[in-house]
C-alpha cells in the first residue's frame, strides 16, 4: 500500500557530525513537508516543497539545515554540523495540490539523537 518511507528510523550521532535524513513520498504526490517534533515545541514546520521546488523553508535554521528534492521520489533534510538541540523526531509528509484540504500522509519519522 502507498506510504511515505523515511530513513533512517533512528540515528545517534555526536555533536558536529553531518546528518542526512531521507524521505520517499507517496508516488504521485506533488507536495512534501518536513516537520520536527519535540516535547517542548510540538510539530514545527521546517520546509515545504511543491513539484520539487522549495517554496517555504522559513522554519529551518538556515546556517545548519538544508532541504532538497533531487527528484520526485526523494526528499532530503541535512544538518551540518549537528548540535544536541537538534535532537528530535523528524517527519516527512506528502500530499496533493491543488485541492489541498489539510490532508498529509506522514512517514514514521527519523528519531535523531545528537550527543
Amino acid at each position, binding site marked *: 500500500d502507498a506510504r511515505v518511507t523515511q530513513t533512517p528510523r533512528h540515528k545517534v550521532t555526536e555533536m558536529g557530525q553531518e546528518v542526512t535524513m531521507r524521505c520517499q513520498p507517496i508516488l504521485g504526490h506533488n507536495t512534501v513537508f518536513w*516537520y520536527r517534533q519535540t516535547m517542548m515545541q510540538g510539530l514545527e*514546520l521546517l520546509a515545504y516543497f511543491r513539484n520539487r521546488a522549495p*517554496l*517555504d523553508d522559513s522554519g529551518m535554521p538556515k546556517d545548519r539545515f538544508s532541504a532538497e528534492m533531487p527528484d520526485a521520489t526523494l526528499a532530503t533534510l541535512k544538518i551540518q554540523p549537528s548540535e544536541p538541540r537538534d535532537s528530535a523526531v523528524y517527519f516527512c509528509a506528502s500530499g496533493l495540490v*491543488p485541492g489541498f*484540504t*489539510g490532508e*498529509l500522509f506522514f512517514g514514521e519519522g527519523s528519531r535523531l539523537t545528537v550527543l
Partner: protein
Amino acid sequence: QQQVKQSPQSLIVQKGGISIINCAYENTAFDYFPWYQQFPGKGPALLIAIRPDVSEKKEGRFTISFNKSAKQFSLHIMDSQPGDSATYFCAASWSRGATNKLIFGTGTLLAVQP
C-alpha cells in the same frame, strides 16, 4: 496569527466517557481544520477534517464542532475506548496560490482508562 492554540495538554477519561479537546485560531485565512491522531512511534494520521462553513462534522464516534465567530473548534470522542489512547493534534491549513501550509496545535495526550 499563524498559531493554533490547543487545550488541554493531557486528558484522562474513563472508558465509555466523552473526550473533548479544544482549539482556537486567529488567522481567518485558514480554510480547513483537520484533526490528526498519533500513536507512539508512528507519524500523525488524519482523523477527521472540517471546512469553516460547516458547524459540525461527525464520523463514527468522532465529531468536530466548529464556531467560526469565536474562531474555535473542538474534537469530541464519544464512548471513548482504550484504543483511542493517543496524542491528538488539531491543525489549520490554508492555500494561497502556490503556497500551502498546515499548522499544528501543541497536542493533547489522551489516556482512556479501562
